[in-house]
């Protein structure tokens, strides 16, 4: 049975384009133009992954409502927000609803497919056997590449896909500077401004600081990029 990806997007052209590329990559796509039709369908049958626009026509927060519904139906279903809204408030909302990823438009379809693929793989792994086999420990940090989980001092850090990729990239060579260009590639979003990277780093730091107010491992190398500071102990 083919993997089912649900797309909820009010713009027909974009919906069709997502639909086309995902279908071409072998997914079964179910596309919905508004919240009520999507809601009805989700009640009938859950997709394996949902790609949600936040603003659905006049429904300003329709995507968030759908995400809540999905979370209620299944705690593990991967949800990606794909939206033109690029505010911290929206990102925090999506985080609170444990959406797995938050992508801003315009999105490269190539990277979109990659993300969908990656998330489905993680979802699959979580459902079968959550193992720590692929865990890599960097000091107090544990990075599980298979399940894309990150623990700081034993506590899980709730990161989005992009954020995970950045942490993964920084910790792959602790103490070495990751340039903006390198980090830009890691986000898999096509053209990424320095400021966007700075934004990701800021949000990652905030998430770590929620667990550990003294967190200071991610160091800024001004004008160049960031590096992960080695544990001293």
């Amino acid at each position, binding site marked *: 049975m083919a993997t089912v990806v649900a797309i909820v997007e009010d*713009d027909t052209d974009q919906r069709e384009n997502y639909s086309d590329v995902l279908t071409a990559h072998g997914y079964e796509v179910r596309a919905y133009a508004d919240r009520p039709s999507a809601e009805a369908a989700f009640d009938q049958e859950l997709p394996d992954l949902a790609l949600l626009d936040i603003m659905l026509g006049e429904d300003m927060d329709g995507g968030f409502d759908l995400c809540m519904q999905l979370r209620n139906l299944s705690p593990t279903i991967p949800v990606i927000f794909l939206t033109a809204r690029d505010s911290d408030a929206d990102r925090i909302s999506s985080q609170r609803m444990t959406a797995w990823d938050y992508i801003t438009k315009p999105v490269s379809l190539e990277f979109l497919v990659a993300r969908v693929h990656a998330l489905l793989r993680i979802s699959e792994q979580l459902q079968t056997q959550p193992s720590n086999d692929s865990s890599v420990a960097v000091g107090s940090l544990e990075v599980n590449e298979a399940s894309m989980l990150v623990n700081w001092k034993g506590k899980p850090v709730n990161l989005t896909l992009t954020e995970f990729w950045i942490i993964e990239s920084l910790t792959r060579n602790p103490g070495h500077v990751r340039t903006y260009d390198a980090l830009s590639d890691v986000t898999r979003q096509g*053209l990424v401004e320095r400021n966007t990277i700075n934004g990701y780093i800021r949000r990652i730091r905030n998430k770590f600081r929620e667990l550990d107010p003294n967190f200071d491992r991610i160091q800024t190398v001004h004008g160049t990029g960031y590096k992960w500071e080695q544990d001293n102990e």
Partner: protein
Amino acid sequence: MNSLVGPRSVKAPPDSTLTSGSARIRPGLKIRTKLLLLVVLLLTIPWMGYESVREMEKFLLEGQEQALELTTQGISSILGNRTDLFDPGVGVPELIGRPLTSLLAEIEGPLAVDAPPDSWAMAVGVLTHFSGSGLFECGPDYDPESLAVRHGLAINPESVFAYFEIDDDVLVFRDPALLSLNSNDQIRMTVQRNNGEILRYLLTAQAPGRLSVYLMRANWKDVVDGEALREIAGTIDPVEFGYAVKIRIPRELLGVGSRLKFEVVDVDDETDRAIRRIISTEPDPMSHAFGSVRLVTPELAKLIQPLYISEANITVWDKSYRVRAQVGSVVPPAREAFGMAPPNPGPFFQRVEDELIRFFDWILRSPARGLDDMPADSSAEDQRLLARVLSEGEPNTERRRYGNAKLIVTAAPIWAQGEIEGAVLIKQSANKLLALQYETLQRFTILFLAVFIFLSLAILIFSTRLTYRVSRLQRETEQAASSEGRLLKDRIRAGARSSDELGSLTRSISSMLHNLGQYTRYLEKLPDTLAHELHNPLNVVNSSLENLQYNHRELTDDKHLQRARNGIGRLRSIITSLTEAASLKEALSQEQEQLERFDLCALVQNCVEGYQSVNPGYRIVPTLAPGSAWMLGVPDRISQLLDKLIDNAIEFGTRNGLIIVNVKRVADEIELTVSNDGPALPSEIADRLFDPMVSSGRDARQTHLGLGLYIVRLVAEFHKGTVAARNRRGGTGVELVVTLPMIPTP
């Protein structure tokens, strides 16, 4: 949105020609001065009042004159056809100055000088009271207990009998050891014979009983004849209230038409024997001049007695210019004439008023003082007027001025059987009227002054308040926008609740600012909104292109597809820079707590190395002050600021040019300057360079949204710094200066 009320952080370039606050102030009158000048116009009111009082004076004087004329004519008609009254034979010698008393009692037999006082009192009939309130004798401190005189006269064919009852607390007799005659209680008698001769008799005593009579010189000190006279006999009898004096004067001594005056002289102290008071039977100072002979007709006098008019002197003359009857005096009663202050000074306000009145008296010359100018003798003028009346037979009126004294004189002929028998002459002082008028003027002036001061104060307060409100409005309006035209606040609170025009002006300005603020906010949000709206169609194009490429692999290297992708890339970068400012503002508001200490020099050094490697076509040179420059802030944002400054310098500098990044410490601030060698700033955008959507971009292929320097400003303001742009001194090039607060090196 925050920047709407942010500090005025953009410094104006020094060479700018901005309209500063002082440029709006022009020389000229201020509202307050103008209003006060208007108040000065009120000063015409006293002039108007003065004029109207003058008019009133004229009117009143005419009225008085007419009234007096009527009286004169009335009297003359009463006296008409009474030839008997003017018969020279009925004339009696007159006792000078008994204007208000009844005439002499006529008795049949003689009165004995030694008879008890009571019998004399019976004989002379009603006694006339003379108090010390006569004009010149006793002065203001007169006490009726100390000296008062009751006096009566009787006449029989041989003699005139004078009787006095004198209240005196201390009776002082003549001391025989003393030579002087003027140092004890005494009676002085003045006789003016009808030939004009004046005789002065002093009646004095060493003990109760007979009086010694001496003929005296005019000074009442020296005796003409040392011998005591025998013709005049008199006694002095102490009684319980003081003493009584009886005097008998032979009629032949007086003759027909002579005048008689008594003065009672009071001495109270046995030792110093000074004359304390003199009470005269003739209180009219006018009558001191013995110019004319009076041949008083008793009946005539009786007739005109009731016609007494205050401050007027009525005389009836016969055709031989002899006074046949007289009543009244032009001089006002003593108390007024002495100009004495009212007994109680009264409350403070009264005193202030009195002081003011005194001041005005001094300035305007009170007519009350005019009485001093009243001549003692005006008989020459009277004679002239009478001559005219008697010869023409027509009533005549004159107004006379003696210095400040004003006199209205009217005369009317008295007819009898078709012939002029005599004339009535009335003299009345106009000074009382003038004094009244003067007083009115005074009160008016004081009232006006009070009103003037009150109005001036009120207008001063009002205009001060108005000026304050206007200047407050001006200040607030000036503060509402920065000198670059950036709106700092969108309403004016002060004074907006007032209901007057100024309040409504304030409200208009406030609502204008509010509308402007909304518009500004709309403009500031426009890039963000625009970007958001562009994202969806851009995504459509992008995803469609990708699908196209995916479905038609052979098109991957198609040049048109490539160009389309390039176009999308440019569109994306435009949109990103559009949203950068808006998202920066939002992000900064959350980063307030994430400030850290860092060394700006180190940061700049790092960044510049990065820029140099990315932009090999330019020489980017850091000229950093030795040591470190620590500041508190968000390093990411500062490097973002530096990014924008470098981007700007690259964009506007000459190709392969030199870009200098300088950091220096100035007092407790850090000055970060990025200068390029590009063309000078156009003056029209120099002030607004750091505002959104302002750019002097020349290259159409490059994106010039003018948001880069706006981000610089936002970051600098977030760090409590300021930004400025200026042309480099001496030569081409522009430098952008960011000033940031420095903290001590940790």
